[in-house]
């Protein structure tokens, strides 16, 4: 579009002087010819009739054909440009002159024929205006036409782009593309469509795999656990053996927790939880905080600002999981005896606990990303928080402010 306009302007600008030169040359030739004709006419009609005495009278009645004395010895027809004073208009004007040698009464004279060039100036002006007008209309026309054409042409492209922007494998929505008359766009749409179908398929397969794998693991885990429970009843256990059993219990607990969380994530992603109801956030947190309270960790949960009437529309079970994960994280990692601060205000929930250094924001919400060398978590808690947020379009974020780890959910 820009190049089109630039080319047009350049072409016009270059052509303007050429056009002008050509025009003025043609015009000049035309004038020269007419001067020649006048001179020829004079020679034919009057030259041989005139006498020396007639010269004065001739010059008196003719304005543009004058007989002058040959002072410079003009031997042949000579054209030249000159600025002459025009007594009629009382100003100097450009003229085209023709000096030709003539003979009157056997004496050499010079015949001067002249024509005003005032029209050439007008011509230039007219040409210039014409050019400006053409240039302006051309640019305006180009602009409008180009804009409309590109709008029309790129329409399917922007539609495709929009679809890609809105596409998410989690939602598994296939996008429909309208048929375009432009071959390239149809190709693009087909390719994008293929890509989408493929991604949806792989995502689905991955989800199913996770879910099936987690399910299949439950039964052997149950066998494992029940055998340990039986083994524990054995009265002839030595202290050492009991300690091994304890370690097995702990490993088993971690394994089944991991499995449970994997199942949970795939369930959230499979939209198993879709009982939308109105939930009071404050009441829910109070209820859950109570569950966390143990004789060892008492009353270290404190509310800073609270909007007691803040309601959310979501699955209550999921919200419970989200809060539980955030709370248990805060409880697990907070430094000794420091308070866990909770604030609910303006569509926002923040849970903060004390800490030493800022955590890697990038890794934090990813599955199985272990932060630091604490091994008590399984690296899925915050991933679950993120999955739940994604489902409802909430935003989970982390900040380290004033030696506090602050986890914020914007609803």
């Amino acid at each position, binding site marked *: 579009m820009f190049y089109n306009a630039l080319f047009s302007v350049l072409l016009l600008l270059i052509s303007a002087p050429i056009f002008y030169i050509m025009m003025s040359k043609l015009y000049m030739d035309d004038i020269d010819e007419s001067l020649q004709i006048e001179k020829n006419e004079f020679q034919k009609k009057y030259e041989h009739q005139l006498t020396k005495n007639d010269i004065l009278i001739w010059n008196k009645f003719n304005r543009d054909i004058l007989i002058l004395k040959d002072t410079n010895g003009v031997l042949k027809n000579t054209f030249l440009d000159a600025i002459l004073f025009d007594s009629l208009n009382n100003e100097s004007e450009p003229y085209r002159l023709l000096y030709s040698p003539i003979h009157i009464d056997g004496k050499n004279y010079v015949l001067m024929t002249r024509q005003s060039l005032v029209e050439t100036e007008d011509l230039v002006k007219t040409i210039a205006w014409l050019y400006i007008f053409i240039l302006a209309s051309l640019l305006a026309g180009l602009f409008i036409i180009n804009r409309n054409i590109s709008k029309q042409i790129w329409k399917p492209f922007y539609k495709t782009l929009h679809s890609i922007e809105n596409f998410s494998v989690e939602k598994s929505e296939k996008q429909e593309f309208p048929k375009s008359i432009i071959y390239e766009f149809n190709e693009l749409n087909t390719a994008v469509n293929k890509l989408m179908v493929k991604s949806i398929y792989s995502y689905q397969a991955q989800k199913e795999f996770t879910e099936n794998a987690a399910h299949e693991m*439950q039964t052997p*885990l149950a*066998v494992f656990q*029940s055998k340990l*429970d039986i083994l524990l009843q054995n009265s002839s256990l030595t202290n050492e053996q009991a300690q091994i059993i304890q370690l097995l219990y702990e490993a088993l607990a971690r394994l089944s*927790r991991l499995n*449970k969380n994997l199942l949970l994530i795939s369930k959230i992603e499979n939209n198993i939880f879709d009982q939308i109801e109105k939930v009071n956030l404050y009441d829910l947190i109070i209820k859950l905080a109570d569950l*966390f309270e143990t004789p060892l960790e008492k009353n270290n949960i404190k509310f800073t600002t609270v909007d007691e009437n803040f309601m959310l529309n979501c699955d209550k079970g999921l919200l419970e999981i989200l809060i539980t994960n955030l709370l248990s994280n805060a409880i697990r990692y907070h430094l000794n005896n420091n308070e866990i601060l909770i604030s609910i205000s303006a569509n926002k929930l923040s849970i903060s606990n004390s800490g030493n250094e800022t955590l890697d924001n990038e890794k934090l919400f990813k599955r199985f990303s272990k932060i630091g060398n604490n091994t008590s978590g399984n690296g899925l808690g915050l991933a679950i928080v993120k999955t739940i947020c994604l489902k409802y379009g909430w935003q989970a974020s982390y900040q380290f402010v004033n030696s506090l780890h602050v986890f914020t959910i914007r609803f």
Partner: protein
Amino acid sequence: MKILIIEDEKELMQSMAEYLLSENYLCEFASNCNEALDKILNYDYDCILLDLTLPDGNGLRILEELKTLNKQDGVIIISAKNSLEDKIKGLQIGADDYLAKPFHLSELSARIQSLIRRRKFVGANQFNEHELLIDITAKSIYVNKTSLNITRKEYNLLLFLISNKNKVISKGALAEHLSGDIADMLNNHDFVYAHIKNLKKKLSEAGCKDYIKTIYGMGYKWE
């Protein structure tokens, strides 16, 4: 007390049976739907432990059959799926409880007892244990006829211990029983120790003998 265990995983079935037999239950087994249907048609059970994923079909079929037969057997669903949908559906069709795999045998035992107690008693539901009187309906404990002032968690803990009399219960099982899913989010299970300590203190102050034994520092037993 007669229990029917419907479970296709042989090892798990054996563990359950062993634990329950030692608590003086009579156990019968079925490892698929048809076997199970055959049994429930011919006998009555106090409690049926029902796995939902069976080789020849969904265990919910058995629940439906029980309903059609108008049988009064108590049913605890034991499922690997732990899906809310199955749980709700099962409870709607007539199951009494739902236990997700993996589970502790002590938890299973406590659930069975609670189920049987609920079904047996109408109105006041009380039983004696040593010098204790446990009132299930009122959720209160009496030591020598004086009410014991204990928290809800301590009550649950005591009932759980008594339900698994003479059995070693692991700390993890206790923690899970007390806090449910939250148990595995807590850093450690020390809080179980704290609860046990408080409970012991309250019991001895009320004049109850110490029946809670610590085993290998990793579990507890009510004797």
